[in-house]
């Protein structure tokens, strides 16, 4: 254990074991890169509330992403939840086209005028949301995309 390299090698082992890379991280990154050809703006995580279930009810995780232009809140089903739906709303509200990329392909909904939307029968696995610009909105507005989420 005399050289710096040997000591750093052992430190590396300790950190790899004590704070391991999340097992799905690489898959989630690769999933997110599928959209890399699209000209878009990535929404950043701004708030995450841990699952809060009440007496046996399934726990829902609430996650919020935002950019300068828009905030989107998503309520994600628990892993064991039989009802696989993702509800959410966007602010500012508007009838925007929303597209979900899931393990079984893509599906589209339009947000209500109050900004609410939901995707039903969402399969387990990765989930990513694309928020398309409003028709007739400012020219050059790019779609907004959330990072890939594990459902």
């Amino acid at each position, binding site marked *: 254990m005399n050289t710096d*390299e040997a000591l750093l090698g052992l430190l590396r082992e300790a950190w790899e074991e004590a704070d391991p890379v999340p097992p799905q991280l690489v898959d989630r*990154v690769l999933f997110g890169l599928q959209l890399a050809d699209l000209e878009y703006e990535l929404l950043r995580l701004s708030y995450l509330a841990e699952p809060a279930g009440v007496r046996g009810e399934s726990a829902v995780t609430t996650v919020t992403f935002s950019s300068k232009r828009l905030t989107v809140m998503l309520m994600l089903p628990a892993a064991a939840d039989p009802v696989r739906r993702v509800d959410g709303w966007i602010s500012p509200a508007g009838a925007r086209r929303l597209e979900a990329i899931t393990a079984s392909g893509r599906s589209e909904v339009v947000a209500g005028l109050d900004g609410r939307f939901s995707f039903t029968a969402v399969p387990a696995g990765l989930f990513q949301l694309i928020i398309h610009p409003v028709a007739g909105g400012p020219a050059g507005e790019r779609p907004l995309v959330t990072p890939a989420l594990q459902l």
Partner: protein
Amino acid sequence: MLLPVNPADGRAVSAQPADAQRPVWALAADHFTAWRHEDPAALDRLVRLLTPVLWHIVRAYGLTRESAEDVIQATWLALISHASSIVDHQSVMRWLTTTVRREAWRVARERDRERVAEPDVLELAIPAAAGPDGPVLTNRAAAVLWRHVHQLSQRCQRLLRVVAFDSRPDYASLATELGVSIGSIGPTRRRCLDKLRALLAGDREWCDS
């Protein structure tokens, strides 16, 4: 599994067959070049090779697991959109590690500001970092080492974690993030390792292992 790399020349220290003899940054350069030459699977290999490195670098800045993941995803996307500006393919690993550190540092500082402003969110913002009593390490030497790492200053822990996973970090940005001059990175690294050795020297279990 990462290779032990000699920081002096960037070469792998261990004598293992084939790819294992090449330093991580050189493998990264190979994958990047192949991807730029229209081999889509090479991007896959690059992501698999370097995502673990990026993870440990980002976590050195005390980000939560969720924030760390967010920063890593953003960094890979940034690589895709800036790929054509990386002329020297040998530097792709440095580009990634520097980008991810800069972003992790920014997020950590923002979070610290919020903590001061809103004490209510303190609980949430504390990273779920494993303390000395946290993980049970299977490697005995690593387990003994782990007990002492936490006695080092935050700056030492951050610097050692960064250099343990990236043998050739960009010193200029690292100096800014650690709040020291470029010239003192080397001496600081040495002092941190010496401090760790001194702690280990006083541990009988370490001396026996």
